[in-house]
């Protein structure tokens, strides 16, 4: 009889469970992705399909679309677990909340952001981004999207017990996303004009580690508030 799961096992169990749930509900993965593609297409149509204009706005548009599609997918992070009561069971378990929350956020990132990162070069090509910017776009998305998931999880945890949390969530979370947006678009723009962008990337990495360490505690506190 195993009295308590080790932290590693607990992390793995939750991660696999959430990934399995995500794979069974393919809409949850596909819809934010389709949204991401459609928003970018709308920008290209709405602004006017002139290659040099598209080239200028490409980093910003791709990043804003990534922010919005992340926001769209965040709802499912805790909502279903909250409704069927398994969230309370998880919080009652002897395993620290930090580990559980980190596993759930990691599963969310794998399900939502990784497909988005893989699709990004295609859309960058549609937006006529300069080829020098591709690597920067990939790296900023790789380092930046986990920050979006981590910070977004705080907002979801705060609003999970509310009936109409969706719109409120965007008001709470989007202001916190702005530093990442500024740094990431600046990095891609610098790279597209073949300037060095390692400085921006280093700050994004610093933000990533800072939010990786602090956000799960805030999420844990917020979940305890929401579940009472």
């Amino acid at each position, binding site marked *: 009889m195993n009295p308590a799961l080790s932290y590693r096992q607990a992390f793995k169990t939750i991660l696999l469970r959430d990934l399995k749930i995500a794979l069974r509900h393919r809409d949850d993965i596909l819809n934010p992705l389709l949204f991401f593609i459609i928003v970018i297409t709308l920008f290209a149509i709405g602004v006017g399909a002139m290659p040099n204009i598209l080239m200028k706005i490409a980093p910003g548009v791709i990043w804003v679309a990534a922010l919005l599609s992340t926001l769209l997918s965040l709802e499912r992070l805790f909502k279903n677990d909250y409704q069927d009561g398994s969230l309370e069971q998880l919080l009652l378990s002897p395993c620290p909340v930090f580990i559980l929350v980190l596993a759930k956020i990691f599963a969310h990132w794998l399900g939502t952001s990784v497909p988005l990162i893989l699709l990004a070069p295609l859309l960058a090509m549609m937006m006529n981004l300069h080829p020098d910017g591709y690597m920067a776009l990939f790296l900023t998305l790789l380092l930046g999207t986990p920050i979006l998931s981590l910070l977004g999880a*705080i907002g979801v945890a*705060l*609003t999970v*017990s*509310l009936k*109409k*949390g969706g719109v*409120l969530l965007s*008001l*709470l979370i*989007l*202001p*916190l996303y*702005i*530093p990442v947006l500024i740094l990431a678009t600046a990095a891609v723009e610098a790279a597209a004009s073949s300037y060095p962008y390692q400085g921006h990337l280093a700050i994004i990495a610093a933000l990533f580690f800072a939010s990786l360490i602090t956000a799960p505690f*805030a999420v844990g*506190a*917020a979940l305890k*508030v*929401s579940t*009472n």
Partner: protein
Amino acid sequence: MWKWLHPYANPEVAYQFTEKLIPWFNVIAAILLSVGLFMGLAYSPADYQQGETVRIFYIHVPAAILSMGLYFSMAIAGFCALVWQLKLAHAAIAAIAPVGAAFTAIALITGAAWGKPMWGTWWIWDARLTSELILLFLYLGVIALDNAFDDKSQGAKAVSVLALVGVINLPIIHYSVEWWNTLHQGATVTKFAAPSMAMSMYIPFVICFFGFAFLASSMICKRFLGQVLARNSLRPWVKQLATAKEG
């Protein structure tokens, strides 16, 4: 000091104490603001570069400092509410947030009015302007989250967490003029060294600042009374108060 502070954790005592403070705050704010604004708007010299438009500074800078200071005090209240479970700290957050949002809006609007003659534009995506706008969004988020909960005590805890998370924006606003070399001028009064402005302008500014600070305190106290009453509406002392006011 703890013994001295302890009775004020009782809502009734805090209510009566705050009620006594408000008239004092009102009087002090009225005196300081009338003297400070008169000195600032009529007597202080015009700036050698910016001319008469510099006078908006006596409203703009106090509002900007207060917008950040009030957010910080709200975050401190949030910290106290989470760590020591103080019910009154919850009421304080709900009292501070709209006042802070108003001062942020004043700072943004007066800044725009000042920017038009000086920079030739109402708005520019300058680092400090952007971060001050984000501060406004953070305040609005706190207010919206507070309104979204039916259960006030549960909502208050959520709001405390959000207020604490948002505090990360404050150093960004404060240092934005030093980190990024943009259109907004550097700090002139909110630095530790001697202020880089003439005394004839500095003294009216300080008087104005404290005038606005007392005005904000008075408004917060007034809102705090309302919050305390709403949260304790079933207590006997509130009922007594209500019947006494009616009778």
